[in-house]
């Protein structure tokens, strides 16, 4: 597969999709078909493959894409800690903070007296529902709290409302969904934005093309390069 940039780019469907396509359009790519056809996965003429955000590191690490765009939340969830990198972490280069897709990873619980605090005091352990079990476990461990992590796939907000857990760890952009479900943010863990990642071999063997892409991305007004 070839493309104007000479690179295969993994593009995330979902919340980051629109901004990512705008970014590619800003680079002068013809993104019309990409916008219109949401069933097609492979856009050979522009060197783009589309997938869910959490699959982007997988395809990039394997070299099925040279570079990719995904959220920092995905990278943190799939990455290891500093001490177990190489065993847990994905082997990808993280090259650029693209600035968009800004969300905050929060710990939230039901409005009123914090049920998580009471659970910790009386039972010694809090139950936490999340789609990010590794991030949640790491945060609670680092803050010295015992927790039982309950991994859910769908709407995390449901879990504390049914009494299954006392708190959730989830990503929020505006906080509206939390509010509507009578949940309040208790702690902010980290801010997550879209990142450009690269396959380690492509980073060496296609160095000129990747550097050119970086240069052009840095030149775009949309990317607030950190």
């Amino acid at each position, binding site marked *: 597969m070839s493309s104007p940039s000479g690179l295969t780019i993994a593009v995330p469907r979902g919340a980051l999709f629109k901004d990512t396509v705008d970014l590619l359009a800003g680079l002068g790519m013809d993104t019309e078909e990409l916008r219109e056809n949401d069933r097609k996965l492979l856009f050979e003429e522009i060197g783009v493959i589309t997938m869910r955000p959490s699959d982007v590191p997988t395809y990039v690490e394997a*070299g099925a894409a040279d570079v990719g765009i995904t959220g920092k939340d995905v990278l943190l969830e799939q990455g290891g800690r500093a001490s177990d990198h*190489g*065993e847990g972490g994905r082997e990808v280069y*993280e090259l*650029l903070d693209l600035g968009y897709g800004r969300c905050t990873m929060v710990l939230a619980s039901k409005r009123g007296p914090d049920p998580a605090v009471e659970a910790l005091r009386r039972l010694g352990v809090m139950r936490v529902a999340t789609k990010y079990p590794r991030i949640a476990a790491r945060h609670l461990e680092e803050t010295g709290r015992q927790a039982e992590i309950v991994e859910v796939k769908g709407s995390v907000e449901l879990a504390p409302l049914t009494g299954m857990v006392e708190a959730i760890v989830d990503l929020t952009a505006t906080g509206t969904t939390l509010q509507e479900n009578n949940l309040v943010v208790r702690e902010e863990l980290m801010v997550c934005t879209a990142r450009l990642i690269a396959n380690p*071999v*492509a980073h060496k063997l296609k160095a000129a093309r990747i550097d050119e892409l970086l240069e052009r991305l840095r030149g775009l007004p949309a990317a607030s390069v950190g």
Partner: protein
Amino acid sequence: MIYPIPSGTRDVLPQETGEVRAITDTLRAAFDGHRYGEIYTPALEYESVLARADMAEAQPAYRVFDESGAVLALRSDMTVPIARVVATRYASSEPPLRFCYFAHCYRGVRPQRGQLRELLQAGIELIGAPAPQGTAEALTVLCHSLDAVGLKDYRVGMGDASLFPALMVSLQVREPVRHGLLQALVRRDFVELGQRLHDAGLEGEAAELLLEVPQRRGGSEVLADVSASAAEAVMGLRDVHQLLEPAVAERVIFDLGLVRNIGYYTGAVFEVYDPALGARIGGGGRYDELLGRFGRQLPAVGFALDVDQLHQALAGEERGTGLLLARPAGEQVA
């Protein structure tokens, strides 16, 4: 009834064994041609012996007790056992010493990404040959071996383990900040590296260099203006490169951000890439202080190839369908 085998291990059947055997036979002949003698060491070693080396992230992962209660570990590479052999069995031999090996090593990696927990390594160790000549010889053997097995498009990334630390010192990065910066680089997270530089209050030219230099890779032009800040490392890379015969030199890509995840490397480090495979095929480097930990102070250099990855790269090149081969026709890899 299916009887499982441990995660990260596998059975190798006759067709594949035959292909792998052809590769290892060719490598063995190539190593032998450069007068490297093949050795075997036990797969199990005393944990306390292996622990003398700083393995960082390639620590032995599997341990057992013997009947006397001693802790044994499955070796995670062959470099450390060979360092032990040299210090004990060759304690008074005149260097340089040349060894090669074909051996299974064991690592606690997370399987599923083509990484095995039991991996077959083929490699050499050149002991008692300092930089730059020793490094140049190792690179020459590496390239001759890969040429012999018929791998066509491979490249060798070469950096220096001391380069980034030297850069930090010469740009007066405060001691407590250095570890975090190096960790970000080891994780290949340049966004975090930038953030940490910013958080440490580093600005201007120093911060720019610390972020930009480790992202440089390419021909000798990337060495251009770092010589002042990391003079020794850059001189070392130049010296090695000048000693290489043209066919080997043109395989080399300088990579100023190259850091290996094994702690004992001291100088030049290298990794082998092929466009037919998304992961590295092997790597190596100088480990001038490791032998000293076993009681015989000798400079040394070596490399190890992951035979299964090499096999996959060869198959990928043959089919012409390697993942990263995708590129406009007739165009050279940058």
